[in-house]
Every structure is written in structure tokens, then in C-alpha cells.
């Protein structure tokens, strides 16, 4: 089975875009729309994470920092100055990109578990800085006005906004995948030393992936804060969120943008379902069990490993 052609994939993306945009018009309840919002948020962030974590193999365990940066940027600008997150989330994305640019160089010199730890530590550091920045009053919580008067209109605006962010993430991810940057990242993932001797500018490419990934995550975070009436400082920067993002991509598959999307849909919907049926604690047990199962039995995630021509050829012969 060959990889789908360029054209096919873009048609698929367009179809997904249309489906996603039109979803609210199927007469969904306010609750369903807020679930759909959560799904789209995690799908966006997982796809964004995957640009670094999946394509280059540098699994960041601190992406919630970028969510938080985006979230607080829009929240503060909205509650203090009434500026719409539709605009300010791009500023949030830029700030997240800036932070990634600053911490990227030291962090990306490390690999595997060391990289995981340092990104975790950096995200904790970022959270401490943001929460304690003088003048912003983040620590005492921020009230965020909602986008519209009615719940229906609110949910609709929020959903369409995050859906737009999700689509931006998918398009960017797909473009990177097939570009020179994408091939370079794949080479880095497979064997960084060999890639370097092939001339691949490993530092530059990793930084690019890190910064883009952070920016897109910040963009999604900017819309996330709009959906919360009140921002609790502990909320936006949790390690749990960082780990969940990693899990979504691991579960769905890291080869392409489709994996994180599938992972986000399945896991988020699954979690919602379990919350209702058996409550939060039991849901966490299953979530932990899921991590275990994924690592052991599905190293390539739901989308599976890359199709291997050689194997088929041998079987046919």
C-alpha cells in the first residue's frame, strides 16, 4: 500500500475542514458543543506537539507552558483591555514562540529522557514566572468575559475559533511533513548523527520545529482561556496536561498529522464518556492503564507502522 498522493491528502484535509466547520449546524446541544471544543483543542495541540515530538523524535514534556502563555496573554488582554482573543491569540502564539526560541537552544542539546526532564522543568519554571510576574495579578485568578450573551452563541463562537486553529495546525503540519524541513526532521529522528554527516543542519531544524510547535500550541491556548470563565493559576500549566498531550500523539501515532488527531478524538471522547459513567478517579486509572497498553502493544499508535513494500513483495513471492 503506497502512501496517499499529495492531492488525496489535501482533499482529505479539505473534507475534514468542511466537516469540522459544519458540525454545529447538525443541531448539537450546548454540552456536545463544549465537548467538541475540548476535542478540537486537544487535537490542535497534539498535532502541534507532534511537529517536534513526532517528526523529529524530541518528545517535549512541557508543552503546557505554551498553552499557558497563550492562555494568559489573551485572558489578560481581554479582561483588562477588552481585546478579542481572535486577534490577541496571535500575540500569545508569538510570545510562546519567543520563549521556545530562548529555551530551545539549551534544551535541544539533550536527548530522550534528559530532554523530557528539561522541558518539564522549564515548563515548571515558566509557570512560576508567569504566576508571579509583578503587576499582572495572575496569582489571584483572572475573570474572563465570555464571547457572547447566549450560551449557544458562546459555544458556537468558541467552537469555530478552535476549529480554525486546529485547521491551521493541520495545514502547517502537513506542509512541514512534505517539505525539506520535514525530511530533515525525519532524518534527525532516525539517526541524528548520520543526518548531521549528511549535511542536515540539526540544530537549526530542531529549533524551527520547536518554535513552530510552541507558536501553534500558544495559539490554541489563547482560545482555551476564552472558554473558561475564570483562570486558576494552577490550571493552565499543569504537568498533567503536558503528559496528556504526549499520550494523545503516542496513542494515535506520530508519523503524520492524522495520528494526533485520531488520538485526541478517541482519548478525549473516551475520557468524557468515562467521567460520566464511572467518575473521575476511575477514569484516571483507565488513563494510566492506557499509557501502559500503548507503550507495550502499540508502539506506532493507532495508525500503525509505515507500510513496508519489501514485506509484501516477499509474501507475494
Amino acid at each position, binding site marked *: 500500500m503506497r502512501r496517499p498522493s499529495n492531492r488525496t491528502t489535501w482533499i482529505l484535509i479539505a473534507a475534514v475542514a468542511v466537516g469540522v466547520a459544519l458540525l454545529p449546524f447538525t443541531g448539537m446541544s450546548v454540552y456536545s458543543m463544549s465537548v467538541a471544543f475540548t476535542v478540537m483543542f486537544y487535537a490542535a495541540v497534539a498535532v502541534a506537539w507532534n511537529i517536534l515530538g513526532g517528526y523529529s523524535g524530541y518528545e517535549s514534556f512541557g508543552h503546557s507552558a505554551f498553552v499557558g502563555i497563550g492562555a494568559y496573554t489573551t485572558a489578560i488582554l481581554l479582561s483588562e483591555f477588552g481585546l478579542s482573543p481572535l486577534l490577541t491569540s496571535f500575540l500569545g502564539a508569538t510570545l510562546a514562540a519567543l520563549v521556545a526560541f530562548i529555551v530551545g537552544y539549551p534544551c535541544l542539546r539533550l536527548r530522550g529522557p534528559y530532554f523530557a526532564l528539561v522541558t518539564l522543568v522549564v515548563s515548571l519554571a515558566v509557570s512560576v514566572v508567569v504566576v508571579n510576574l509583578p503587576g499582572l495579578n495572575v496569582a489571584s485568578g483572572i475573570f474572563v468575559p465570555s464571547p457572547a450573551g447566549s450560551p449557544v452563541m458562546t459555544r458556537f463562537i468558541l467552537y469555530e475559533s478552535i476549529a480554525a486553529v486546529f485547521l491551521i495546525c493541520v495545514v502547517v503540519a502537513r506542509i512541514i511533513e512534505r517539505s*525539506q524541513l520535514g525530511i530533515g526532521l*525525519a532524518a534527525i529522528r532516525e539517526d541524528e548523527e548520520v543526518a548531521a*554527516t*549528511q*549535511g542536515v543542519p*540539526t540544530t537549526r531544524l530542531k529549533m524551527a520545529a520547536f518554535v513552530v510547535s510552541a507558536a501553534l500550541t500558544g495559539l490554541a491556548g489563547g482560545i482555551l482561556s476564552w472558554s473558561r470563565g475564570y483562570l486558576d493559576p494552577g490550571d493552565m500549566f499543569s504537568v498533567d496536561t503536558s503528559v496528556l498531550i504526549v499520550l494523545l500523539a503516542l496513542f494515535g501515532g506520530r508519523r503524520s498529522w492524522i495520528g494526533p488527531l485520531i488520538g485526541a478524538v478517541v482519548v478525549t471522547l473516551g475520557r468524557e464518556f468515562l467521567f460520566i459513567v464511572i467518575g473521575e478517579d476511575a477514569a484516571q486509572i483507565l488513563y494510566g492503564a492506557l499509557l501502559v497498553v500503548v507503550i507495550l502493544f502499540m508502539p506506532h499508535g493507532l495508525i500503525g507502522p509505515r507500510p513496508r513494500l*519489501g*514485506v509484501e513483495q516477499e509474501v507475494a513471492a
Partner: protein
Amino acid sequence: MSLLVAEGITKRFGGVTALSDFGLEAREGETLGLIGPNGSGKTTFFNLVSGLLRPDSGSIRFKGEDLVRLTPPEIARRGVARTFQISRPMAGLSVLENVLPGLYFGSDPQPAGRARKRAMALLELVGLEEKAHWVAHDLTMWETRQLELARALAVGSELLLLDEIFAGLSPSDVERTIELLRRIRSQVTTVLLVEHVMAATMALCDRLVVVANGRFVTEGPPEEVVRHPEVLRVYLGSKEVPGAEG
């Protein structure tokens, strides 16, 4: 005309000295063989030239520029390409995708369309074009060597470092590989090869450099070098010509 001049190279790993005040000169256009007993520092030297390691002292000048301060990608971009002793195909990528990074980021960067064409041409040159879309993981050992070669050619054409490309091959495969190298010889200006298989070395090299215990022993045309008393002593401790048995 010297292409590569290494002088005073010393490299230590903890208590072990891999290379001690070693040097060599590769002239433009020649095929230079680097030979020596196991553990004499040959692969270490390659790692130093390609930038994966830094020497404790000494300089490695390529076209006059000292490579010691440069990173591996920077060195590759100047046209220095290498293969690896134990083949390291990028297993999860296809054969074609293995060759693309060198064409995108190497010494002669190509845009996407041209890069693909050139990649296919290189694969044809080494004989792998049938398996261009196979995942590299599924190649046979011989095929991974072909791939190493194609990848190196994609990176650059000034200096090709071949690290024991004949290791572990049967006599007929050695013949095949000698043929292959002769075929691609025109693609590259200068070749520096590290080898143990003397049949191949004698067949391909214009000159030999001998290293033992990290030190330079001698250099010269192959027929002279293999009869040099110091070389015989270092290899065998006897009067036998190295590799005379085949």
C-alpha cells in the same frame, strides 16, 4: 595539490590514546588507502575528519580550511562525505528518502523536484533503483552498503571517506564492490578509504598510508608499502606480505 592535510592529530579516550601525533596528506584526484592493524585508530581518524569527534590537538585542513572547529553538517556542506563501517541506514525511511537529505542539505543543495531526479539517478548508479520505495529496514546487508554509497554521493563530491566498505564480504561481493567503486569513481574527486581487505586496497588505491598504535608508520605506492619492513613487523611480526594469501 593537497586536498586534505592532517597534522599533529592526537586523540585520547580516558586512558587510551587512539591517535598520537598522526598526520596524512590526501592529494586531489587520488585514491588514498589508510591501512593498519585493528584498533590502530583508523575509524577514529574518520570520525575526526567528519566532525563527530574533536581532536585533543592538531589540525585537519580541507582545501586550506581547518575542519576541527566545524560541526558535522558544516563539514558535509563543504563536500566531505562518509560511509559508516557498520551500515547505518535510516531504517524507518524509504531508500529514496535516505538519499534526499544529502541532496537538500549537502554541498550542492537541490530544490525538491530536481533532488528527486538526482536521487533516482544516484540509486541507479549504485544499482538500487528498483527498491527506491522500500523501507530501508528491509534491505539486505549488501544493499545497505549500496545505500551508504548513494547517500555519500548525494552529500558531496569532493572527498569521499569509505569506512571499511569491504568488511565481511565474500570474494565475489568484493569483486562486485570494486566494480561499483570503479563505476562511481568519476563522481568524486578524491577518495580516502580505510580498509582491511587487501585485495580491494591494492586494486583501487594509488597510494597507501599505514597507521599502527595511533602513530604514522609510512606512506607510498602500494607495492612499496606492503614490502616495507616496518609495515610487515607491525602487521605480522614476520616477513609475510600482508594479505598475500588473498
